[in-house]
């Protein structure tokens, strides 16, 4: 079975991150990488492929700026077979609706049996793209899988909710999203890194997908970020010094004032 894995290129959370003048995340001027949560999607696809008959092919798909090819390369280094990079200036500023439109049109052009996504991106973190993709592709969604089993075209996943754990199933084609509990992602080996150099990556524009530029981008997006503000720095904690045995009372008083007790 052929698998498409959607991976997002996100700003590196350990480096400097900032917004652009129009309140969109600066994705060009910062260090980026393959979203950590999407590594789990790649890992699950690889594991499903490894259990297969060896004819399966994994295509990684990303929608993002020039440097987003880094995310594809990392997935190829992990073991995916080929990459598709949709890049077009008109896409900048797209919200999840617009992004999912571009992704869905690209997926339609790739020979596949099902789609795997991460549970959320680590920057936008809406967690809605997989559901939107399922809707646009007209296939079932099996999302937030923390344990994945597949037999032929049948998939069963465990979904851990706050109150209950569900087991849900579907038949390919479908859109699967997996959580960070689904299994540790592998690290690229040197062999994998060298092999990735020879794997094919195609670059598509909106025109290649037949998507009109007016349907995507900041202006076509339903959501608009109006304002952003940095979180105030954490204030210094209050230190209770127990000098005369009144420490416990002072501590209790503090907790009560914050309505903890």
């Amino acid at each position, binding site marked *: 079975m052929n698998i498409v894995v959607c991976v997002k290129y996100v700003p590196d959370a350990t480096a400097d991150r900032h917004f652009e003048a129009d309140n969109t995340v600066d994705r060009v001027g910062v260090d980026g990488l393959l979203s950590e949560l999407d590594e789990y999607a790649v890992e699950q696809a690889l594991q499903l492929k490894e259990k297969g008959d060896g004819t399966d092919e994994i295509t990684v798909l990303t929608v993002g700026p020039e440097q987003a090819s880094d995310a594809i390369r990392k997935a190829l280094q992990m073991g995916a077979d080929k990459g598709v990079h949709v890049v077009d200036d008109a896409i900048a500023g797209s919200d999840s609706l617009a992004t999912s439109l571009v992704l869905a049109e690209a997926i339609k052009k790739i020979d596949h049996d099902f789609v795997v996504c991460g549970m959320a991106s680590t920057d936008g973190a809406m967690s809605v793209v997989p559901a939107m993709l399922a809707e646009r592709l007209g296939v079932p969604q099996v999302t937030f899988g923390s344990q994945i089993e597949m037999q032929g075209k049948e998939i069963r996943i465990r979904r851990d909710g706050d109150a209950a754990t569900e087991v849900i199933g579907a038949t390919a084609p479908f859109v699967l999203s997996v959580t960070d509990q689904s299994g540790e992602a592998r690290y*690229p*080996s*040197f062999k994998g890194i*060298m092999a990735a150099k020879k794997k094919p990556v195609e670059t598509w524009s909106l025109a290649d997908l037949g998507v009109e530029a007016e349907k995507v981008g900041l202006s076509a997006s339903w959501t608009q970020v109006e304002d952003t503000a940095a979180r105030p720095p954490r204030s210094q904690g209050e230190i209770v010094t127990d000098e005369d045995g009144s420490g416990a009372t002072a501590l209790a008083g503090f907790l009560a004032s914050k309505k903890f007790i």
Partner: protein
Amino acid sequence: MSGSFELSREHEEFRRSVREFAQGEIAPYAAQWDRDHHFPVDVVKKMGGLGLFGLTAPEEFGGAGDDGDFTSLCVAIEEIGRVDQSMGITLEAAVGLGINPILTFGTEEQKQAWLPDLVAGQTLAGFGLTEPGAGSDAGATRTRAELVDGQWVVNGAKQFITNSGSDITSLVTVTARTGTRENGSAEVSTIIVPTGTEGFTAEPAYDKLGWHASDTHPLTFEDARVPEANLLGERGRGFAQFLATLDDGRVAIAALAVGCIQACLDMSVQYAGERTTFGVPIGSKQGVAFQIADLEVMLTASRALTYRAAAMKDAGRPMKEFKQAAAVAKLYATESAVTATRIATQVFGGYGFMEEYPVTRFYRDAKVLEIGEGTSEVQRMLIARGLGLPVE
């Protein structure tokens, strides 16, 4: 490859991958393993999964084949050693002393029998050269192997042997006298002794100053019998063989030292920015900042020497040239590492003496770098000889 020591993009990407592995799988537990003197077999196997033991091995044994090189092995050792010197030496010894001799001198049968599991990190091999009476003077080997009825019968003792007694050690190769030459000198050969051979015992692990999570044992052989086919390489070539083995190992040890210096630098920069005395961070005092500047110099120089030697190896430069570069890198990087740990612990003040911070562990771990795989004195001897000096 030109023999230049610029690392390629792929080497740098591999560095990032090993760094993430080391941060995720080793760094959080290194202090505990050190305290418990615990050798983490499961992590060795994970390192195997990442392909670290196969970077210089052919594809047919599960290695990286033509894609791999010695430089990538040095990158891996440096990055593992940056968070844990014990796991760094485990990798270095597993490849340099365990896999290398079999790969270089083994017969096809020996390679098929042992290499796949060694390359996969499922098993480890030790290399037994040093003896109670033969270290720097390795030619003084007293261990004997006698050919009796188609079997080598090994008797003697080895000491300080890395990876020789772990739960996954599958064999040790040992140097032994197999006869006397016409001129009266010893004929030394190398023999593969599988774990579990009757008469071969890995004695209880040493209580060491550092490298607590690395597996080191004394070995005894009392009429340990192995098939004649376990001779590794040519009979009587044991001495020449281990000398060849040690050249590569020296560069790999230098890479381990680079990891140590990098760790010292990272820890010192961070601590000097955080710790305040007299109302300012200690890093604003020249007395502290200048010492840390020296760490940067040692790091840059050691790294350059190490990867230069590695690049020479990968480019197949003449042996004489490489040997000299290897000894220079080993000597400079390891002595710098010991100095770097002394500086870093000084930057940490009293905490430099407490096991609360990793800097203390690095201090204990560094010393042996100047001793193993040829002491500093031996390196100086080799370098002087390389210069044509008549040093004895």
